[in-house]
């Protein structure tokens, strides 16, 4: 039993998937921050759409929130919203530092604390992407995400070292994803709309999600039903097909395809991206690496050979001119 547990959690592996996780999460956070930069006061400001006076009354007092800045604003005479901008700036800087892998744990801690403060204040405006960003930044703080491809440990000649902490971290990511998908699938399955296809139809008819004119789907209810059933199958079956090595690559591709579909048809690009990042770090990295080795690397080799051939030809003609 103990040996099984040890093999499952502690068999050494390299930290590349975790480095990918760090870099991709930091990049996504920067994109999200940049995207919302012009709307900070509306979403998080002291007198935003949901003002601090309301959010602080709803959020538990032990949760960090932007209303804690009010005494500082009063003491300094600087507007509270200016401090919100300062905090957003610090958050984006910490993500930059996390991205390059310098002072990784400190950067992750600052990013996690500030993101938590922002989502507590703007909890009414938050959706799935904030939920998973919070989870990801907490993991970046604790997991060895800065051991590879990081400024702190950068060297062109050292290869990633395998250790047990990488495996333990990946296992936590994997198991957490299984919890997420099975819970999400079961909750969907409890409503009739996912079984009869109405969930798909209703979603695509909403202006907030619709990217294309999908009225035609009413004439093909079977299609809506098949998409609904596929979603249930993918989410509730996730722990099974993603864990079995034979079905894993197909399962990974299917789940990535589902999230790409969500991004394309519902416009939830940030949410889809973060789910693809989680899935790739937890399960998909070996396939991504294999695809790189079999497709991209030979192409680059061929390009290099062509270039070497051109240089050799030039040198030859130059010598005999």
């Amino acid at each position, binding site marked *: 039993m103990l040996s099984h547990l040890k093999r499952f959690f502690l068999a050494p592996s390299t930290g590349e998937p975790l480095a990918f996780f760090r870099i991709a999460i930091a990049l996504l956070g920067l994109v999200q921050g940049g995207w*919302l930069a012009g709307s900070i006061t509306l979403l998080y400001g002291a007198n935003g759409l949901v003002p601090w006076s309301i959010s602080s009354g709803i959020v538990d007092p032990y949760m960090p929130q932007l209303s804690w800045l009010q005494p500082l604003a009063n003491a300094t005479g600087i507007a509270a919203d200016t401090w919100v901008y300062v905090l957003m700036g610090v958050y984006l800087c910490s993500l930059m530092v996390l991205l390059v892998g310098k002072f990784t744990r400190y950067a992750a801690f600052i990013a996690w604390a500030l993101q938590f403060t922002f989502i507590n204040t703007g909890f009414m*405006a938050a959706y799935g992407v904030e939920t998973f960003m919070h989870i990801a930044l907490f993991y970046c703080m604790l997991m060895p995400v800065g051991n590879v491809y990081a400024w702190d440990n950068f060297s062109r000649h050292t290869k990633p070292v395998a250790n047990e902490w990488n495996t333990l971290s990946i296992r936590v990511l994997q198991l*957490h994803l299984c*919890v997420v998908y099975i*819970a999400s699938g079961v909750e969907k399955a409890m409503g009739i709309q996912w079984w009869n296809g109405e969930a798909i139809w209703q*979603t695509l008819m909403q202006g*907030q999600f619709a990217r294309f004119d999908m*009225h035609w*789907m009413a004439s093909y209810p079977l299609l*809506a039903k098949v998409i609904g059933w596929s979603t249930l199958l993918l989410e509730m079956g996730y722990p099974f097909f993603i864990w079995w090595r034979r079905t894993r690559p197909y399962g990974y591709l299917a789940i990535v395809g589902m999230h790409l579909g969500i991004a394309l048809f519902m416009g939830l690009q940030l949410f889809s991206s973060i789910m693809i990042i989680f899935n790739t770090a937890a399960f998909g990295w070996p396939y991504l690496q294999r695809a790189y080795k079999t497709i991209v690397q030979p192409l680059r080799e061929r390009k290099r050979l062509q270039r070497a051939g051109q240089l050799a030809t030039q040198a030859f003609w130059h010598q005999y001119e």
Partner: protein
Amino acid sequence: MISIKHGCWIGLAIFHLTIAALHAAHLEEWTTHKSWWLKQITAYGDYTGSGNIFSFFAPHIGNEIAVVYTLADGREQRVTRLESSNTECNRRIQTIYNFFSIDEAQSLLAKSCAAYMLRENPSSQMVRVTVIGKRVPDMAAYRAGATPKWEPFLVKDFKKRPTTL
């Protein structure tokens, strides 16, 4: 053999994932009384991200909600909506509006939306907040000729308080 250090970290990982699973199974709704232990577990979940439920679009899809503001300054009035060219910002505004589907939240949310609009439009003296929901017929009804309908379900007027001298 597993060392003590390894054992501790595995134990922590299992604890964390158990908390995540319990929250995903709506732990907080199991009992009406919130014991001291439940409060600590909730706090742990909030801080670590293991305290989430994952009921995205479940168990059913709610109606789309929109808010129309009618601003008046005593001489004329205009109808407007709060949206920009920034799609990600609009999505968040929409997420806030979705709270109008909760009866208890309606009054407070309408008040805060009105206050925001009056601050953003200082010349306006009054604002009417009209919350409308989009009812999409099911596929069979749509095929039979029914069409999606926007229906107002909350209308509230707010006036600027006269400033005291």
